[in-house]
């Protein structure tokens, strides 16, 4: 199964993982991203704002889910991304992969988490305690992690 969702509502990670696993699933990999309480310099953060391009973001996430399923031979894949204003501690993204064995499940999870940073129309802004907003720029590390997958061969069986 493939489940892709962009939502302003909270999601239930346990329920999502339960619905992902099927009778042939031997392993499920899962990445959950949460909003940190501080910014990159250690200053307190009031909230994170997530903006998306309705329709186009969902389509890009569906392509990513399909690519992960094909590349790693997944039995099921779920990508959920929240948008809107998110308080520190809130789960913002879930990427999960069900496969027959642990290696493809974990590799696909890492692949999706890396690609979500750079390949999907989503934009983050940090809200400071004084109410000001700073839009984030991609980090070199995020771009390198996403690019690295272009140079590695798809996992075998």
């Amino acid at each position, binding site marked *: 199964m493939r489940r892709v969702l962009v939502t302003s509502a909270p999601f239930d990670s346990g329920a999502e993982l339960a619905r992902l696993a099927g009778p042939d699933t031997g392993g499920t990999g899962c990445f959950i*991203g949460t909003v940190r309480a501080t910014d990159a310099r250690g200053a307190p953060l009031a909230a994170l704002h*997530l*903006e*998306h*391009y309705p*329709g*186009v973001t969902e*389509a890009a996430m569906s392509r990513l889910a399909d690519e992960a399923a094909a590349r790693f031979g997944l039995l099921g894949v779920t990508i959920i*991304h929240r948008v809107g204003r998110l308080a520190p501690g809130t789960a913002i*993204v879930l990427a999960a992969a069900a496969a027959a064995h642990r290696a493809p499940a974990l590799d696909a999870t890492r692949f999706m*988490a*890396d690609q*979500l*940073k*750079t*390949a*999907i*129309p*989503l*934009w*983050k*802004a940090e809200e400071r305690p004084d109410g000001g907003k700073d*839009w*984030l*720029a*991609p980090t070199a590390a*995020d771009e390198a992690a996403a690019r690295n997958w272009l140079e590695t061969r798809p996992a075998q069986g």
Partner: protein
Amino acid sequence: MRVLYFAWLRETVGLAEEMLAPGAATPRALVEILRARSAGHDAAFADLTRLRCAVDGAICPLDAPLGEAREIAFFPPFTGG
């Protein structure tokens, strides 16, 4: 043609979207037309190295042909995940 703006581009332009008569051959040519519309537009498009675009929902280079595009979106590099 519908023109959309996201993230800090939307805030700097001061609009989420606007309608424009078609005519520009590429997104880059459209940017030049847009820059003349207001000080906000001019500021938003001052640095094209930080600019990305999508034509009818497909991400493409600034020099891609616009053709009969109905929607073009301008935005900064993605920062999701």
